[in-house]
Structures are given as C-alpha cells and as structure tokens.
C-alpha cells in the first residue's frame, strides 16, 4: 500500500454465546465504536466492506448509523478465508481515491443463531456436494481429511495440536476481551476433551462459536495527524488463490502436507514489504482448527516443513517466544468473529494497547490462509 493507507480506528462488542440482540445492532455498536476510535463521525464514512454472508446490508447500516453518502461498497467471498481481504478492498478503495474512510465490519450471532459447525444440508452445485454426499458434512470433517495427511507425513499427533491450544488459551486467560478470560487449560484438559474427528481433532482443537461484532475504519494516512490514537499503517495486503484450490483446505494440489496458498501469500507479503519472518514481531493466524496454525507457521517460513510441532513445543509462539502467535487467544481462545477479531489484535499490538502487549512491536503479520496483511507503525 506504499504507506498511504492506515487503520484509523477499531471497535467491537463484547464476545458472547448469546448476545440477546440483533446482528444489525451488533454491527451498529461495533462500527460506531470504530468510527469514534478514529475520531470521526458517521458522516465521514463513505465506504463499506463486509463478508458476502454478513446479514447486515449496507443500506440498513447507513440508516442505522446515520451515514449520509456512500461512494464505495464491496463484499468478500468464502467467509474467514477473506478476513484480510476485507481490509485489502478497503485499502485499495482509499488508495485509489474511490473513498476516504471505509468501514469494515463483521457481525453475527454465530452461536445463538446459525451455527457454522452444524452439518451442511444440500448446498448447491459446484462446491461442496462432491464431499457432503460421501459423509463430509461439517467443517471439522472437511479439514480433517486434509490435516490427516500432514499428521501421517510428519508424525504430528493430536497431542501436538493440543500444545497450540494450550498456548491460545493461556493468551486468552489474560485477555479481558476473551470469552475464555481467566480460563487456561492444560494439555491433559485438551487430551480429555471429546473427539470431533478421531484421531485428528478434539473439541478443544476447534474454534469457538461466538456472538459479536468487530469493525475497523480504513482511511488515508493524512488522517493520522488528527487521530486520537496512534495510526497503524497497512504495509501490505494480499489475496492468494491457486487454480485447483478449495476454500482453505487442500485436496487437489500435488502436496497434501502443505498449504500452497499460504506459501503464495507469504511470497507476496515478503516481496511487497521487503520483510522476512525475522522482522515480524507478532503473528496472527486464522485458526478454525488448531492444525491450520502448523501449516501457516511453515508456509511463512517461521519454521521448516514438518517442524511446527517442535517449534511450538519449544515455546516459540509464546508471548516471550521468538514469534508470539495469536496473542489475544485467537479464534479458539478469544472469540470467532470470522477472523476479523484477529486483525483488531494486530492493530492493538502495533498501537501498544494489547492486553498481552509484546514489547517494541514494529510489524505484525495477520494471515487467514489465503488472505493476509502486514501492519506496522505509521
């Protein structure tokens, strides 16, 4: 983004299992908070980006927030895969002059309303019916079919995956925003949780189901002068999709023990920023399930292929490790707001306002497998 675009504000609701209010109200609360955090008013907002599957349409949002004129809107497909794509769209709109201040939001009652972890019904052609028909009806099963190849190739076990969960829950335990605040677990707790797809995933390998909303305001860097808080620069934003790919999992690429899209994403982000893994101070990885962190650690070059289990066991992703990961507790520990809450944590880490603040943060990597950002100081 050549330094001209910033995250000017962030906002959120509390994260719960039953918000007791509409998704539109959640969206309004989080976006209003983000606008105020940016030192703006709703009248300053002239762009909006959310997920294709967000239930809150832009015109309802305008009416609810009091936005007067919208010059740009866009939506991003495939759910959490596009968590960082939303910010990319907003940044491109601002960089091009299509809009000056773009609201990015995601709001849902994903626990008390429609639960993503439930089995799929018939979902339509061209996508998942090649799998649902044969008994792959939940995301846990869909991903386990891929994860198992990694386990078999590198000798990784569910206990290895549990070591990530223990770290995520430890980070959540000291983050007052987190659903699992003050509730750390041991590896034994993980190993006693019930199987979801034996021998790959236990319950505690799965992200939460959450109610809540998060929002960001993406704006021109000139705005930074007027901001009540430190601006956070979007140093790079990229999508990474490959022919033959699927939505975040990998059935058709030659090497099933790898995540080629994340490798492609890493190449783009390193090339555009001139940074390398050693330059990153905090990494936020989308984790619908714990093993996806292993693939991403390896794809981004924080460790070598097959070595993520040892890398994690050696404490490298802890708050005082070589690359602290998911310092808010991630989607397992903090909440599952479709990955967008991990971007907010990245912003906080650069600002220096995170609950589990890492010292001297210059650059944060936020990756959702096939979309990613590098955030840095403005």
């Amino acid at each position, binding site marked *: 983004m050549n330094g001209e675009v910033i995250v000017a504000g962030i906002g959120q609701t509390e994260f719960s299992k039953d918000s007791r209010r509409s998704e539109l109200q959640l969206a309004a609360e989080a976006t209003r908070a983000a606008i105020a955090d940016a030192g703006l008013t709703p009248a300053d907002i002239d762009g909006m980006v959310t997920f294709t599957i967000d239930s809150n349409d832009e015109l309802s949002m305008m009416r609810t927030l009091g936005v007067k004129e919208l010059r740009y809107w866009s939506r991003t497909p495939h759910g959490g895969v596009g968590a960082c794509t939303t910010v990319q769209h907003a940044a491109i709109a601002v960089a091009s002059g299509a809009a000056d201040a773009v609201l990015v939001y995601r709001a849902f009652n994903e626990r008390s309303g429609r639960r993503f*972890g*439930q*089995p*799929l*019904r*018939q*979902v*339509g*052609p*061209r996508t998942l*019916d*090649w*799998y*649902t*028909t*044969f*008994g*792959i*009806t*939940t995301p*846990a*099963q869909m991903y*386990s*079919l*891929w994860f*198992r*190849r990694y386990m*078999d190739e590198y000798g990784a076990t569910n206990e290895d995956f549990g070591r990530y969960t223990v770290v995520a829950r430890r980070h959540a335990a000291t983050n007052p925003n987190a659903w699992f605040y003050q509730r750390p677990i041991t590896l034994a707790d993980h190993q006693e949780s019930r199987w979801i*797809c*034996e*021998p*790959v995933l236990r319950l505690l390998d799965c992200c939460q189901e959450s109610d809540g909303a998060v929002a960001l305001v993406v704006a021109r860097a000139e705005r930074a002068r007027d901001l009540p808080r430190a601006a956070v620069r979007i140093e790079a934003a990229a999508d990474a999709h490959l*022919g033959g790919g699927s939505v975040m999992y990998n*059935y*058709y690429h030659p090497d*099933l023990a790898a995540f080629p899209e994340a490798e492609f994403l890493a190449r783009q982000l390193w090339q555009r920023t001139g940074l390398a893994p050693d330059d990153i101070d905090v990494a936020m990885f989308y984790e619908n399930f714990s093993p996806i962190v292993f693939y991403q650690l390896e794809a981004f070059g924080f460790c070598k292929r097959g070595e993520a289990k040892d890398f994690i066991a050696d404490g490298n992703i802890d708050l005082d490790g070589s690359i602290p990961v998911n310092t808010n507790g991630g989607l397992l520990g903090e909440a599952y707001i479709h990955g967008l809450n991990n971007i907010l944590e990245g912003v906080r880490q650069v600002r220096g306002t995170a609950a589990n603040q890492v010292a001297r943060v210059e650059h944060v990597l936020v990756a959702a497998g096939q979309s990613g950002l590098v955030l840095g100081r403005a």
Partner: protein
Amino acid sequence: MSGTVDPVVARDDRYFWEGVAQRRLLIQRCTQCGVLRHPPAPMCGSCGSLEWDAQQASGRGRVLTWILSHHPNHPDVPARVVVLVELDEGVRLVSNLVDVPNDDPYAEYDDLGVMVDFREHDGVLLPVFAPVVAG
C-alpha cells in the same frame, strides 16, 4: 433421518451421476487437448475448449488420505470411511472406502490400492471404492 446428503445434479455434473446410475465411473475429458478434469467444469482450463466427453475410468486408484466420519448429531448412524482417492488416470475424488471396518480410526489406509464399486447408501447409488485384494 437420511445419513446421505443427496448429490446436486446440476447441468455440468449430470454426466457423472448418469454414469453412476449405469455403474460406470466417468471422467470428463477435453476432446481438444485430452486433459482430464474432476470435479467437472464446462470449459477446459488448459486450452479453453468447450468440447468434452466423458471417458470411463479404469476405476483403479489409491488412497491419499482418509477419515472416519461420524454423523455429528446422530451417533447411531453407522460411521463412513471417507477417502480421497487418486485414480490411476491422475484425477482425484472424494468417496467412501467399503468392505473395511468402520470403527477403527487408526487403521492404515494411506496408499491402499482400491477399485471402484457402486453401492446404495440410504437409497442413493454412489461410486465407492473397495480395497484391491492382492493376487
């Protein structure tokens, strides 16, 4: 309730399920450049041709990865062994492995040689795979 989510027989996929009804495993083939593709697509991603036919697969392949799939809400529904199969022709498809125990998540099926068969599951005829018996 049914443990099977019925396939969606859309226009581009119809040949596949018509083949299954005749107990034939069909793979889409570009008639211009010969590339095979699955899942189906209306245009060849290699040469751009819209012309294709469906060739009968050998039915032989090997297991690349697998899981035991329990119905998440209905523990009484028998588990299914779900496999990702690479056919000898080089294309991959997700299917079920049959004629093996469906209660051992630690069985070793990686690289297992398999052969297509056609079995009814909850009234739906599906292409599935059975282990190739040595000799």
